[in-house]
């Protein structure tokens, strides 16, 4: 069974951490994954950097730029992930934009994911229709989950369509925003989270964007199967000792 599906069957209040591959240093990708698993992360999203990341806020964009400037490529990322499954057992997703995947080659990309033991992908600017037509068969052949995003503005009909196409979890954006905004759970957000909860989707949901501390994490978990932290983590590992930064950061959620 796909590791993502298994995780959702076995666990509640899942904590997923996003970080940018090759940041702060090119060789850090695997070390961070190991440290995160050791400190209690349930799932990982490794971002492959892109030069024009329109859905990202300034923190993640800057990390992508630093990583690219230091020479990160998708090819290099797959080389770094060669020993992933010897060192990390929790589910791992790759997250990034469609153009690097297109240039790498969709088939080759899926093969490489399967080879290194990546369980799924999040490609925010890949349209649903394109996925259905050109990517779905390939993803399924390689047992890769494809995770779609929904926002407070996503219409119900479309949510059901996304639910039908997804096989992992649905990424519930806390607000319609780029990454790095703080989660403000007011009446509107609560109504939106409750609305989604009551749709009884076949896929589990994870809330992302704006989760930065235990309080916002717990709040998110009361509406979904877990939450995703990105910007706050990327900020936390910017400098200092990597293992220590990871462990200190995770203590805030697990302690």
């Amino acid at each position: 069974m796909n590791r993502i599906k298994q995780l959702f069957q076995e666990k509640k209040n899942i904590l997923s951490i996003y970080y940018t591959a090759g940041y702060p240093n090119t060789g850090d990708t695997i070390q961070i994954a190991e440290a995160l698993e050791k400190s209690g992360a349930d799932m990982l999203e490794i971002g492959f950097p892109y030069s024009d990341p329109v859905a990202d806020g300034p923190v993640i964009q800057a990390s992508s730029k630093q990583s690219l400037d230091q020479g990160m490529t998708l090819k290099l990322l797959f080389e770094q992930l060669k020993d992933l499954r010897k060192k990390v057992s929790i589910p791992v997703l790759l997250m990034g934009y469609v153009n690097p995947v297109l240039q790498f080659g969709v088939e080759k990309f899926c093969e490489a994911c399967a080879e290194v033991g990546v369980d799924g992908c999040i490609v925010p600017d890949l349209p649903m229709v394109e996925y259905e037509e050109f990517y779905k068969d390939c993803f399924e052949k390689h047992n890769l989950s494809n995770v779609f995003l929904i926002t407070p503005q996503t219409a119900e009909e479309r949510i059901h369509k996304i639910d039908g196409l997804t096989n992992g979890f649905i990424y519930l954006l806390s607000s319609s925003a780029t990454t790095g905004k703080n989660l403000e759970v007011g009446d509107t957000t609560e109504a939106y989270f409750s609305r989604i909860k009551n749709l009884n989707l076949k896929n589990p949901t994870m809330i992302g964007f704006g989760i930065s501390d235990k309080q916002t994490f717990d709040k998110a978990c009361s509406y979904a199967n877990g939450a995703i932290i990105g910007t706050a983590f990327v900020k936390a590992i910017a400098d200092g000792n990597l293992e220590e930064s990871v462990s200190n950061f995770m203590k805030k959620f697990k302690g």
Partner: protein
Amino acid sequence: MKYKVNEKGYYGDFGGAYIPEMLYPNVEELRQNYLKIIDDAGFQKEFHQLLKDYVGRPSPLYLAKRYSERFGANIFLKREDLNHTGAHKINNTIGQILLAEKLGKKRIIAETGAGQHGVATATVCALRNLECVIYMGEVDIERQAPNVARMKMLGAKVVPASSGSKTLKDATNEAMRDWINNPVDTHYIIGSVVGPHPYPDMVAIFQSIISEETKKQLLEQTGSDQPDYVLACVGGGSNAMGMFYHFMDDENVKLIAVEAAGKGVSSGFSAATTYLGKEGVLHGSRSILMQTPDGQVVEPHSVSAGLDYPGIGPQHAHLFKTGRGEYVSITDEESLDAGLLCTQLEGIIPAIESAHALAYLEKMEFKGGENVVVCLSGRGDKDLDTYIKYFNL
């Protein structure tokens, strides 16, 4: 339909809407409504009234006599430089502001390179009393100071884009981010035939007034509505698309699109997209763009801020791939020299963007008597500083 958009939003292999979910409702709202709104008789009446009384259309089609003598062909200049605000950009912003009003939007955002689209957007926002935020690369803010001042006078907020190359590409990213963060009340006026469907089609429709008028004017002046050649410069490609639009199906009319070679196509400082680029996705559509083998967008260079863009609109990619259009390029120096030539031969100071199209005349061979239309997309007032430095004026 051969060169126009299909119902899925594609031109052959190019187009589509590669956008994050956060933008889907906005883009979908536009897609479902734009044709209905544009085709409405009331909209058309208001649009054309404003083009006539406010923009000053039709813009003249001027037979440039000294140019014609020099090149041995009838060189016509389509005078978009005479439009209010000094370029073709206003055709599109008038259309989009009326559309935004119909959609009930209260806030307008836009990106700008040379500042022409920013000025055109700020102008229509002032005209219709809507809040206006313009994203502009830090580098462009510096080299297009008069346009920045114009935008500010018009009441727009100019936000510097400080990421990447700090030019048009980055301003576009910032505007898209703003739209993601303000999904309900904001309309994004994209200034070129780029972006997710329906933008390339919508902008092309608004700019198609250029070729619509040209056909009528040619018929009056030459007895035929079909010239031998039509030339226009291409960054994203909106003036070129407007200039080509009604000629695309006239297969005997040669369409020539002039890109910015910058310091030379092989110099590493160029914006010659079709020469250097390959197929990929940028700013919401599948097209041709300059990129590394790993799919990272390469920073372009051109002396003209309006052509300093690493991609072209998807419809241009289709015209290029099918061979319907000929895509060529002109260097910074060639364009500046052509700008001076135009000034001295015809008394018209062209925008450096437009001067790229003019410069290609030097590379063409005419048998004599051909009719050639060049889109003079904008005036060069905003570029005086660059001209002054280059020619030591």
